[in-house]
């Protein structure tokens, strides 16, 4: 698929919640320092797949899976792996901005603090907020509540918060779906910027967004039995100009979904 080794790789991944299976037989790799988009119709298990990458699904009691997810070649679901340990290396930005009800500074400082960061916290916070392209808007009000920010600013704050623990991968679960077009554009530009240093996986139901920002695209689609499979995974250009599977073509041309 690619020249160098993927940072995250799934093998025969199969996920169920209780008796209901969501995705089946997913094999894909996330390339380092690239943006990988996961697209597909509602309920096709995009978020479920994404949440396998940082073991967020562990919080759901009925979750179980088979197959494996490798992070930098190591099995993420090995018994010896503490999910807490890998979550700061694989950051996550959620669909709805979820700033903590604390000051802007404390939001960004939260990750470093819980992980026992020793060093210049103020400098790290500033650097993280700068990278999230939010610094000029908040530099004079770091002590203000994060809840006083607009939705787009809150989402960039959440990105800054994720950056502050210096992750290797950033997972984004429909990060723009609750935002207006201008904020969306800001976040997309930011993602392009960040992809120089981070590997990014974004779930989106917006195909234009996937086409605009991503390098690779994975298309999930439910089968007859409602369980989703990975229909196609390739370079974004390929998927959108010359899809190999007719279901991919039908989806991206808007014939269903």
């Amino acid at each position, binding site marked *: 698929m690619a020249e160098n080794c993927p940072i995250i790789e799934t093998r025969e991944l199969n996920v169920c919640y209780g008796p209901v299976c969501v995705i089946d037989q997913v094999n894909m790799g996330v390339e380092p320092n690239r943006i990988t988009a996961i697209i597909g119709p509602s309920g096709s298990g995009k978020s479920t797949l994404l949440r396998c990458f940082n073991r967020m699904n562990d919080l759901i009691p009925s979750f179980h899976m088979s197959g494996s997810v490798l992070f930098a070649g190591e099995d993420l679901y090995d018994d010896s792996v503490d999910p807490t340990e890998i979550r700061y290396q694989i950051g996550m930005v959620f669909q709805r901005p979820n700033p903590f*009800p604390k000051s802007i500074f404390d939001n960004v400082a939260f990750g470093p603090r819980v992980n026992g960061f020793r060093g210049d916290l103020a400098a790290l916070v500033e650097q993280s907020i700068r990278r999230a392209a939010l610094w000029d808007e908040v530099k004079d009000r770091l002590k*203000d509540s994060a809840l006083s920010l607009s939705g787009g600013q809150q989402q960039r704050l959440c990105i800054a918060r994720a950056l502050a623990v210096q992750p290797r991968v950033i997972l984004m679960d429909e990060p723009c779906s609750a935002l207006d077009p201008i904020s969306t554009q800001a976040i997309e530009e930011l993602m392009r910027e960040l992809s120089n240093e981070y590997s990014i996986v974004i779930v989106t139901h917006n195909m234009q967004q996937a086409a605009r920002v991503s390098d690779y695209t994975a298309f999930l689609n439910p089968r007859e039995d409602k369980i989703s499979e990975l229909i196609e995974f390739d370079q974004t250009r390929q998927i959108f100009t010359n899809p190999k599977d007719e279901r991919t073509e039908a989806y991206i041309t808007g014939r269903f979904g």
Partner: protein
Amino acid sequence: MADRIPGRFDRRMRRRRLEGQIFHVLCLLSILVGLGMLAALLLNIFMEGWQRVNWSFLTSFPSRHPEAAGIRAALFGSIYVIAVAGTLAFSFGVAAAIYLEEYASRNWFARVIQINIANLAGVPSIVYGILGLEIFVRFLALGKSVLAGGFTLALLVLPIVIIASEEALRAVPSSIREGGYALGATRWQTIWRLVLPQAFPGILTGVILAVSRAIGETAPLIVMGALTFVPFTPDGPLSRFTVLPIQIFNWVSRPQEGFHEAAAAGIIVLLVVLLSMNALAVLLRNRFQRRMEG
């Protein structure tokens, strides 16, 4: 209005508006009934007891002579007992709620516990008095002390604190927990730094309610063996004691008119203690909320 275009639903509109007004008036009447009763009660008590509330009433011990009788022992007893009960109920209640909401898995066992806590909240308080008598006074040999009284009242209000704290924890959106976990916080860090601060105002509300109930309780403490005539302030956790409601009850049941005035004055003192404790808690809660939303 006059040359408004007639609409198809005009007739219904008039009726709907009338229904709304009737409901409005009904609600207003309900609150007036409640407030009226409260006002009558307070007025009655204040008329009878107001002239008795003075410094010597607060600092005197009970007496055979109605005009010399004071509330000091009961006031101190109540404060001590509530301090013990409030501290215990708060710590155990919040810890239990955290366990049930954040740690326990949602299985039949957790459900059984939950149902039983709700049941405990409905057990008559006198039953807790018997429990306190058996366990704290006799088995643990604490005697009929401040400590035993505090423990008994703590048990009595514990279910209320647990249920209110659980509600408060449940009201913290799961997105906050996920946000914490996604940054590598452990479960404890997430609870301590994110969930608890946000749930705290709600927890405090539950504790206010619980303590307000405890301070007015008489039956369990009488069963437990609190005294009715105490000419001393408690000098330690194992000292014997009385509390305001018991003292009031004692005065009310005397034949002399003077004691009835003392009882009314005692009720005023009890109300003041209750309201100032509530005010303190509300103040604390508001400060906390402001800090959160800043």
